């Protein structure tokens, strides 16, 4: 049978015979990718405007919306704690907002159980908009019109990046569920 089709005993996640998922990779990949997303923006140059999208939040939204049921409702707290260490916002901001975002998505999901991708993108867009506005209001500095205008490019970038983040999450999900372990 293998002679006719070498992939006959395997699927998208590798061989189905003699192989199994690695529980460590399967559980750790979402968390690690979100933490990496939180750390990445500090590598950017010290630009005059907040230009780099909040990649940690983007990854959290993508994991939660593309793979519902994987992250628990309370995941916003520990992941937000890590984000707070690197984001530059006052400490506690991401813990607070990410927890609220996770609860909000839970509510959206109970209202609209069957959703298409564009609906997910829409809700992610609304959440990103409110997150960035909250970040502007609660930055610890004096919120003024100029810094609000300066927020617009970042907002547009972030919303446009969501489909790419969703693709990356789908890719990471395939990696996560690949059968690495030989049994």
């Amino acid at each position, binding site marked *: 049978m293998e002679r006719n089709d070498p992939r006959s005993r395997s699927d998208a996640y590798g061989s189905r015979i003699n192989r199994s998922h690695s529980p460590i990779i399967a559980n750790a990949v979402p968390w690690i990718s979100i933490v990496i997303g939180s*750390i990445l*923006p*500090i*590598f*950017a*140059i*010290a*630009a*005059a*405007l*907040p*230009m*780099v*999208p*909040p*990649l940690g939040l983007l990854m959290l939204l993508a994991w939660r919306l*593309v793979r*519902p*049921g994987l992250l628990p*409702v*309370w995941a*916003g*707290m520990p992941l*937000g704690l890590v984000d*707070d*260490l*690197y*984001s*530059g*916002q*006052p*400490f*506690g*901001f*991401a*813990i*607070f907002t*990410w*927890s*609220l975002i*996770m*609860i909000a998505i*839970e509510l959206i*999901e*109970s209202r609209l159980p*069957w*959703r298409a991708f564009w609906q*997910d993108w829409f809700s992610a867009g609304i959440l990103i908009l409110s997150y960035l506005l909250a*970040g502007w209001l609660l*930055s*610890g*500095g*004096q919120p*003024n019109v*100029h*810094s609000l*205008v*300066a*927020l617009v490019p*970042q907002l547009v970038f972030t919303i446009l990046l969501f489909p790419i983040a969703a693709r990356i999450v789908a890719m990471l999900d395939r990696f996560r569920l690949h059968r690495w372990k030989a049994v």
Partner: protein
Amino acid sequence: MAPTGSRRSGYSRRAQYNLFTGYVIAGVGALIGATLLVLSFFQPHLFGGLRGAAQDGVSPATETAATVRTGSKGFWDTVSGYYRAGSKNAELKREMEIARIRLAEAEAVKQENARLKGLLDLQDDERKPVVVARLVGSSASSSRRFAYLGAGLNDGVSVGMPVRSPRGVVGRILEAGGDSSRVLLLTDSESVLPVRRAKDEVVAFAEGRGDGLLRIRLINLGINPLEPGDVFVTSGAGGYYPPGIAVAILTETTDDGGLARIVSDPAATDFVSVEPIFEPEAALGATTPVERELSE
């Protein structure tokens, strides 16, 4: 995406409790976050140690990235330098001749200065930087403007020290960790710096607007004497910055001052030097509202 069954607990007590606990933990998490947020509004430095440790943890990676970034920038500068090299060369030669003349004039002024200072018996000792380090990162996704410096308490850096590049003021140290520290950039909306116009004694405050520009607010109101192109330098008031370092160039005048661009763009700087606080006693004793704003 199809709904996952995990939210419907059915008759299983265990599943019901798990689900309920999840919601409770999420709610408690949001409450904890709100409490920490309120705490850090009133005590901004409370979590500085934690952040410093986290920053130290990634500093090998950020240092490497900063080195590579500067290296690649230098490479592009070299490549673009070859483009229209001939006309540039001629232009530079002309500028060079004028600069030589100006240098000779400056030499004369310097001598005269030394003579006058000698008459007045003023001390003029050389100020040595505490440390020279790279700006390794920034809070690029936040609406606050912070940069991270690759030197910390172990290198003698302490909170309040001014940070400058060869071109001008970059900001000041806000939090210092072991091997890294956080710099409040001039463009941050909480940054206020006393400045004066370079050619005369018009004093003003340079406040960050949060969008890359500085707002110059004159102290003496009346007819606005500013013109686009005016250069502002530190006045030395407040005791943190030594006087006479370039800060900003005015681009636009308003009723009470103007808008200015910073001279030393942190994105374009490679190495910066951290200098000791100019007058520690003055900085400590200053209790004006400006200094209170600066201390965040």
